[in-house]
């Protein structure tokens, strides 16, 4: 199954790579750019259904009492 075509341009993606600090070859950047469509699709899915209430709690618990 081919990866969904990324919506981000190659130029904008290269800027993301620079900001990440990853030192990638051109081939590695091309591969990652091609795979970026998967990230966009999954990101859209976890944000589907509109904005959550500001108070919607994440599934993360912080326990102030260190054991």
């Amino acid at each position, binding site marked *: 199954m081919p*990866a969904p075509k990324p919506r981000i341009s190659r130029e904008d993606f290269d800027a993301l790579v620079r900001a990440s600090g*990853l*030192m*990638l070859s051109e081939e590695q950047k091309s591969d990652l750019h091609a795979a970026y469509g998967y990230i966009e699709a999954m990101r859209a*899915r976890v*944000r589907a259904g509109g904005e*959550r209430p500001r108070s919607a709690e*994440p*599934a*993360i618990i912080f326990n102030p009492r260190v054991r």
Partner: protein
Amino acid sequence: MMDIPSIAEAGAAIAAGRLSPVALTEACLARIDQHEKWVHSFIRLERDRALGAARTAEAEIKAGRRRGDLHGIPFAYKDIYQTAGIPTTAHSKLLIEHLPTCDATTVTKLGEAGVVSFGKLATHEFAIGGPSFDLPFPPPCNPWSIEHFTGGSSSGTGAAVAAGFVLGGTGSDTGGSIRTPSAFCGLAGIKPTYGLVSRAGILPLSFTLDHAGPMAWTVEDCAILLQAMAGHDPADPASASLPFPDFRAKLAGGIKDISIGVLRHFYERDTTVTAEVGAAMEASISTLSRLGASVREVTLPPLQDWQACCMIIMLAEAYAVHEPWLRTRFNDYGKCFRDRVAPGAFISSADYMAATRHRRELQERLARVMIDVDLLILPSAPEPAPFTKDVASYGLFEIPNFTMPFNVAGTPALSLCNGYSAGGLPLSLQIVGRPFEDATVLRAGYAHEKATPWKERRPIL
């Protein structure tokens, strides 16, 4: 050559004086000598230590100091479980010289229970990158068919137990890494409830999704191993301080009191399975019904929602763990690891929090469904083991799997064999329970296993 016993059978024979731990260890080593050259399940075989431990176990048992069913049992650890004085490489060039100074909590517990450690088993690189042919060690081959995938990431454990090199081993499961190799290699493997088994001393992949658990030939063996591995550990911040039952004692009693929900839409609408997997599922539903369970269909949010939630969290957390090395030693990782984890660099904090909020929503939906049913069932995998050459780096991203939902929810999930394909490869059933009701999951799996003939076959090496 000695037939391969289950842990329960070997434990009983050792207790009765009919089986010597030394003879059992020697028989397993002989099998390894004959077949490991093509199975490639071990990263490090500790032959002398194993024989020494077996002799010690035998002496202790003869002196009346038998510790239980695991005393003298050949066993091995996925190579992300840290072992004092024995290298723990995560199957990676980056940790090739990593020599831990202390054991993972579970290694200590299993050692106290008396297992005979044979050493360290292959894994996908850092429990995610594999199968890979550009690492310091080859990926294992499936004992049922050399060209087929073992599943991962607990690939060496799947191969070694199926081949009868050891009677049990450890796995870890962040998105299916205990249940998938158990499914493809014809084993039983349980991802326990999050918090039941300590993660301390196990190299992390994704802190909130990682689970440690046992893999063995039978469900009963998993119950015996889980007993030794479970329990509160102050060294693991996620460890639950809750009592837990005698899992093996709870196996008996049947399932007449149990209600089961079938997640049919996961495997018939959200994605597809092979005809053989579908038929095996129908047979399992019939078996569980015949044993007295009430069975009906239930519905959850689409499988793709669970996959997206799991993947965003896993990639963000895994990238955070590996960022320093990815920035400085990118090419020392295998390509498969790089393909799968580097995209985590581009997940924002808002994406991560959206996924964790979605995780709570999904968890609550699952909890509501499980008010009315005790267990859920579905296949562990959509097909029998594929050819290793056909496993793609981005497979995790492309096709939603049946295991990730229960990492997202943290619920117990057991994989067990429920038949074979026409080509002789194992098929699998997954049984899921409410949090901390691992005993109910094991009880249903045990009932299914005892009512079916699937454990009578072993791979012909």
